[in-house]
């Protein structure tokens, strides 16, 4: 946290512009955090269906695999949406970890879909568990953090 370079009552143009940019960033930050929390929650709930459906399929119900497949594909879509929102949140004062972790999860999900279609279960099952754990951990983390009052400071030079 850098101390303000201008005393608060100075009304130089640069200071006012910096103040305006900060307010704008803060509003985008707040607008991005709520959808990020929602999409992370949806992501976590949807991914929990996958091991259930896989288990039902292994019990002999072929119909479960016909649900496992489209949910798996939509999870990649949810992952892309989460990456976009996490990036917006990061650029307006959030943490860079959010898009980084989401990118890792998304890469894992793409690999998971490929391994699923090619029936490589030695990769598909452990990777699946890791993805469920990672997605739940991300959702818990982003929903637990308190909203800081101000985003990263941008001080006009």
């Amino acid at each position, binding site marked *: 946290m850098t101390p303000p370079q201008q005393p608060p009552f100075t009304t130089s143009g640069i200071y006012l512009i910096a103040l305006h940019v900060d307010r704008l960033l803060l509003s985008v930050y707040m607008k991005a955090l709520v959808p990020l929390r929602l999409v992370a929650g949806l992501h976590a709930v949807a991914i929990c269906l996958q091991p259930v459906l896989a288990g039902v399929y292994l019990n002999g119900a072929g119909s479960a695999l016909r649900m496992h497949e489209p949910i798996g594909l939509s999870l990649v879509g949810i992952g892309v949406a989460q990456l976009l929102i996490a990036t917006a949140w990061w650029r307006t004062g959030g943490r860079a970890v959010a898009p980084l972790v989401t990118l890792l999860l998304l890469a894992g999900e793409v690999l998971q879909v490929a391994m699923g279609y090619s029936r490589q279960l030695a*990769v598909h099952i*452990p990777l699946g568990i890791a993805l*469920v754990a990672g997605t739940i951990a991300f959702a818990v983390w982003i929903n637990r953090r308190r909203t800081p009052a101000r985003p990263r400071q941008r001080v006009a030079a």
Partner: protein
Amino acid sequence: MTTLVTTEPKVRRPRATLWTLRITLLLHAALIIAQPILAGYFLSGDVDAITAHGSIGSTVWMVAMIQIVTALLYWRPGGGRLWPALVTVVLFFAEFVQLTYGYLQNFAVHVPLGTAIVIAVVWMAVWSFRPTARLSRQEAKK
């Protein structure tokens, strides 16, 4: 020369008991993580993998039992919180149910419950190495 003596109220923090809990959790996590990998190898055609999966599954509840003891020691006399012991009791029962459904070959329970057990054990192991695990009960309440 004056020495500054800080007189903090004496709080009992878990140290040795935390380390025993951590070691138990690492062993538990290693065995538990091996399970989905072995199951995956079995399902992709490696028939021998299921014997290892079965023998780990048949013994991992003993590790959970040891973990109940170490988690209780972490609570008292260690001075840490009680919930790790309670969660371990739940894990112990979950692993028994998991073993039963594994032998029954009811995968609609075995696969999701297995996922939940892996996540719970790994999460506890990660938690035990975070600074918050070092806190005493009184400090954690604040």
